[in-house]
């Protein structure tokens, strides 16, 4: 799960991490109230920055980051921004509608650094990463100048130790009060990462910057958070930060039915039991020249309700030209699954060819049920056969007869 920048800054404050003055606004009036708070703290000459709140980078170039010097300007910029659709390199061509803005004081940046906490899968422990190359894509830094990235593995039983933070600050060229401030920031960010069950906290840039009063410190100018979905049950406050407006509506619908769905751009809808087999099914469709419209794992014990919801979801995607159901029945028997498919296919009008490949427990009975159902189902034997048939079906020619 991702969160908005204003929510990230609220979390930072909760963990004793200093951030710019200001806050979220959903109307021009609220934005002016934020402006007033900022000028009350920093004086009437303080400038504010207004940032569109969407879950995507590249806002600046798309007109989603603007400055204001007066109450009227603040109101005008906010009025223009809210409701606007921003298209950035991360939103796709359809863009994202701006529903709120973040109004903050403006920092004078002196140096841009990078700091992140994430899981090191090889070590099975958290790792903190720092670099002098702030404001850049860290993957590019890692590829071109790996010596500019320093890393510390954290013992989860101890947490991040102050000496580790001091080592990183030294590597970043921070000294004196700035080193103290940097270390404090790092330790607090690690604590946030661990206590909130994050899978990633990336601060880029972590800036050496002066606030409007001229006080220089180290602060998190922009931050990206990912949370471990499996741990959200113990963080209801963070779960409440979820913004369904920022998610693919198909994904939201799927999660209501306990389905694991990810929408893609292709034209072959897939329904598979098991995540690994679902990925493999997408791959083999591609191998036979087709293009998968989605990843969909109906789980090991798919019920009639789930299969019905899955069909509805697949059919709601108008790019879909054919459907492939690939089920390896284990403990869940093929005849039960076939009954589910038949019931669902009767309940939902399926406007495109449907290819079904069943394998596993009671497969013969399941296949027989599908054939006798009277539904125009194309049955397939094996994954290669299924992929070939569905790719042909999606192409609109050479749809094979029922077997």
């Amino acid at each position, binding site marked *: 799960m991702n969160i908005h920048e204003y929510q990230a800054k609220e979390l930072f404050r909760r963990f004793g991490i200093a951030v710019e003055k200001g806050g979220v606004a959903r109307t021009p009036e609220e934005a002016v109230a934020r402006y007033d708070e900022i000028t009350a703290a920093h004086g009437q000459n303080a400038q504010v920055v207004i940032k569109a709140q969407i879950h995507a980078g590249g806002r600046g170039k798309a007109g989603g980051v603007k400055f204001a010097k007066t109450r009227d300007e603040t109101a005008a910029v906010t009025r223009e921004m809210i409701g606007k659709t921003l298209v950035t390199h991360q939103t796709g061509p359809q863009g994202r509608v701006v529903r709120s803005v973040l109004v903050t004081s403006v920092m004078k940046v002196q140096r841009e650094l990078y700091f992140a906490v994430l*899981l090191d*899968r*090889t070590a*099975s*422990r*958290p790792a903190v990463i720092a670099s002098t190359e702030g404001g850049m894509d*860290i*993957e590019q830094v890692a590829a071109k100048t790996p010596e500019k990235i320093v890393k510390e593995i954290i*013992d*989860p*039983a101890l947490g991040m130790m102050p000496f580790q933070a001091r080592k990183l600050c030294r590597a970043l060229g921070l000294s004196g009060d700035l080193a103290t401030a940097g270390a404090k920031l790092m330790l607090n960010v690690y604590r946030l990462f*661990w206590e909130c*069950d994050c*899978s990633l906290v990336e601060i880029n840039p972590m800036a050496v910057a002066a606030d409007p009063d001229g006080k220089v410190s180290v602060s998190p100018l922009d931050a990206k958070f990912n949370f*471990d*979905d*499996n*741990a959200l*049950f*113990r963080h209801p406050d963070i779960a409440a930060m979820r913004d369904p407006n920022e998610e693919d509506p198909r994904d939201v619908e799927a999660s209501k039915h306990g389905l*694991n769905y*990810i929408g*893609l751009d292709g034209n072959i809808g897939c329904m*598979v*039991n*098991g*995540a*690994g*087999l*679902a*990925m*493999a*099914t*997408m*791959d*083999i*469709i*591609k*191998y036979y020249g087709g293009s*998968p419209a989605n*990843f969909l*794992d109906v789980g*090991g014990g798919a019920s009639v309700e789930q299969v019905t919801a899955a069909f509805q979801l697949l059919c709601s995607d108008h790019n879909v030209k054919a459907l492939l159901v690939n089920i*390896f*029945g*284990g*403990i869940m028997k093929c005849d039960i699954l076939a009954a589910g498919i038949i019931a669902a296919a009767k309940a939902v009008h399926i406007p495109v060819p449907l290819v079904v490949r069943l*394998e*596993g*427990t009671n497969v013969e009975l399941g296949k027989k049920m599908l054939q006798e159902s009277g539904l125009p189902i194309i049955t397939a*034997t*094996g*994954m*290669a056969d299924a*992929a070939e048939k569905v790719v042909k079906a999606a192409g609109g020619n050479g749809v094979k007869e029922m077997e």
Partner: protein
Amino acid sequence: MSILVDQNTRVIFQGITGSAGKFHATHCHKYAGNVVGGVTPGRAGEVDLDGVKLPVFDTCAEAVKQTGANASCIFVPAAFAADAILEAADAGIALIVCITEGIPVNDMVKVKRALAGRDDTRLIGPNCPGVITPGQCKIGIMPGYIHKPGRVGVISRSGTLTYEAVWQLTTRGVGQSTCIGIGGDPVNGTSHLEAVKLFNDDPATDAIVLIGEIGGSAEEEAAAWIGEYCRKPVVAYIAGMTAPPGRRMGHAGAVISGGKGTAAAKIEALRAAGIAVAETPAVIGETLISLLKKRQRTRPRKASAPRAKQGKISKKPTQKKPAKRK
């Protein structure tokens, strides 16, 4: 022989009184009769597994004391699973198989930290189908009948994709020594590499099928070791060629982040290590069989030690003339 489990394995189920725990304990017991009891805190007494009555204990320690269990299968809910794993380890259980899906990553980080350096206990999973030595012992949720005793070791991160591969082997007459589902989470008890090492040392295993997927670098680490040290032929398949970056493909561990963990990179590493990579999931079985045949043809000239073993297994599929696919 085999690895991890055999006919002498004595299994308890943690969470045996829950519906999933009871259902799968029943099926595991029907398969080879290795289940000796269960644990559910506060529910000590008895459980009826389709006519077979087995004791239920409040703690793992008590269960081990009373039944002599040396393996555990965990079905407790995700929020309590880390505690259950460590309880089993504390009770001295040598093999802990955790089926539970959806355990918070940080919980598993703590479990790994707590088990670090302990060579008296091994965790398989979590979020895995389990471990099976065909005909001898099944600990997990896989359908028993798709397996066949034999000499190929199977390692995989996923459930149904493993069944797919195993079924391809079985229907072609190729049996398995042991099949291990290591689980789809980013932090798991036993890695691909550790499983490969176990099979490499197992005299009853002649070849290895390694099924991986996008995310992390466990397959690359296994590949590097195999290239250097593995004495047995390895066939691999990697799922997720078409997965978009930044999206979690069902498994918590299956995500391409920051350009890392792509299927292409994994396949390249595997091929560089001399591993035969199946192009599609439909040809995992065929790829193994043709590799074994090729080896059999080239073997007679060399007089190396593993030859006899190699010959033994590669003969199996050819001798039996498995039924051709429909």
